[in-house]
């Protein structure tokens, strides 16, 4: 059976060129970048070249980019590090309700430590309101953290506008750009961003490596204490294969960005249109245009997301869902709740996230399969016959 991967927002395969670039750093160039000898110096050179490459793709000076163990660490570091280092300015942080748990759970921890957090609502398309944001600012506000692209529904926030508001009020602005990198052009100056989180495994790079951009002059405490790596800001022997792989992935993503966006947008729109036209009682979530080029998020009434995923998997299609059953929690995803979906609709959510290796044929097969699978599950559903009046 053919297998079709449509879960690129969860993670991506490592591209061959990326793997090729990484391999020598496991065996030949295995040195510790802090060592004086030739092995160490080779590693150091690759480390700094990689840093410059990645920083270059976001319009940042090389020495403002710090490697981390992934996107979650970058989020933790940005929020905890900035709030703790700027206590003299205040204790208030503004974020929004649809952030990744890397942000939300960090905020909850900060609240327990005495910081104050405002969680902004979003509208039915997942957008924050700039007016509400500005109104939430108070004298004790230190920082705003609003994600760039939402991982579930794909909605893209007006980052440059948020940055302007932050500037106007002298606030520090962080954005979680994990889903944005490689899917939208990023320039830290044009966007007025002070800190930005990244992760390599969403852009065809390896897992367990990411980074945090920190604008010069921003006060931030360390999260990981130890050796003097990353200019004394993030301890730990550098993950050189990861670093090199991240840089290669960022370079490829940057070179192909326009073509990537164009291709995915076409496939995404074809997929959404196909689903909405051929399955009744279905609804697309997120913003219709200001969204991740590969993100499709649809709700199917009267059926449950996990059952849908298992049935799709049996047809070789890999997707994900925000239903309670797939997360193992009681409620459907906080994102779907925040855009105002009733529980019973949110339980039937499906995310198909497209990437570089998907084809038009796969998209059409996915639509066909969905028609079948949704029909089969609805025929079993006691909610469906109530609507159909069949009974």
């Amino acid at each position: 059976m053919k297998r079709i991967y449509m879960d690129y927002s969860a993670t991506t395969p490592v591209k061959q060129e990326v793997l090729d670039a990484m391999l020598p750093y496991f065996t030949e160039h295995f040195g510790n970048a802090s060592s004086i000898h030739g092995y160490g110096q080779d590693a150091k050179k690759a480390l700094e070249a990689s840093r410059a490459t990645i920083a270059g793709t976001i319009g940042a000076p090389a020495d403002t980019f710090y490697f981390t163990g992934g996107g979650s660490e970058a989020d933790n570091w940005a929020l905890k590090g900035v709030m703790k280092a700027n206590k003299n300015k205040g204790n208030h942080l503004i974020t929004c309700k649809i952030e990744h748990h890397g942000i939300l759970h960090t905020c909850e921890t900060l609240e327990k430590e005495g910081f104050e957090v405002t969680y902004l609502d979003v509208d039915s398309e997942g957008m924050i309101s700039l007016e509400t944001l500005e109104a939430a600012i108070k004298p004790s506000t230190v920082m705003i953290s609003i994600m760039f692209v939402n991982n579930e529904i794909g909605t893209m926030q007006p980052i440059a506008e948020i940055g302007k508001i932050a500037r106007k009020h002298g606030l520090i602005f962080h954005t979680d750009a994990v889903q944005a990198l490689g899917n939208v052009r990023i320039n830290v100056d044009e966007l007025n961003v002070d800190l930005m989180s990244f992760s390599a495994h969403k852009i065809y790079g390896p897992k367990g490596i990411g980074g945090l951009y920190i604008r010069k002059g921003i006060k931030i405490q360390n999260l990981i204490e130890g050796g003097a790596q990353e200019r004394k800001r993030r301890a730990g022997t550098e993950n050189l294969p990861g670093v090199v792989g991240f840089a290669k992935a960022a370079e490829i993503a940057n070179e192909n960005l326009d073509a990537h966006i164009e291709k995915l947008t076409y496939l995404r729109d074809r997929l959404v249109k196909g689903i909405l036209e051929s399955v009744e009682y279905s609804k697309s979530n997120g913003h219709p245009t200001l969204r991740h080029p590969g993100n499709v998020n649809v709700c199917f009434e009267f059926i449950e997301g996990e059952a849908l995923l298992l049935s799709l998997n049996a047809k070789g299609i890999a997707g994900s869902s925000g239903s309670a059953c797939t997360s193992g929690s009681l409620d459907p995803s906080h994102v779907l709740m925040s855009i105002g979906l009733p529980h019973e609709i949110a339980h039937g959510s499906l995310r198909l996230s497209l990437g570089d290796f998907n084809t038009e044929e796969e998209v059409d097969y996915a639509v066909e399969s969905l028609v079948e699978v949704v029909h089969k599950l609805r025929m079993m559903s006691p909610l469906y016959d109530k609507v159909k009046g069949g009974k």
Partner: protein
Amino acid sequence: MYTDIVMDHFMNPRNVGEIENADGIGEVGNIKCGDIMRIYIKVENDVIEDIKFKTFGCGSAIAASSVATEIIMGMTVEDALKVTNKQVIDALGGLPPVKIHCSVLAEQALKAAIYDYATKNNLEFEGLKGYNPVEDHDHHDVVDIEF
């Protein structure tokens, strides 16, 4: 995560549908929590001659409904009332801990259907003593992972 038996019952559910003029219908679960199970029974001479289900829910909810109908088909009403969620789990070759509540739902849906039958026919069953049809829905444990 699921056994082959669970997957088989999910992909090829037995006894899906409804029974015209059923002798008893039981519906349990909660749309907010994402699972509703409805069981129809046809009873003749105190024996469950036919049983069908409709379920809105996850893979294990559908599999639990399916396997429960297989267990119960042909049983006397009194014996059916003794069927426990543990039997449903065993017949499925096990369920992940967070899905145990699906088997509880199957047990409750069956009880509700028999209660409906008993009420309509003014019958009393030993296994229904102290039964309260008010729903006591079982909840999942909470763990969350997000990508």
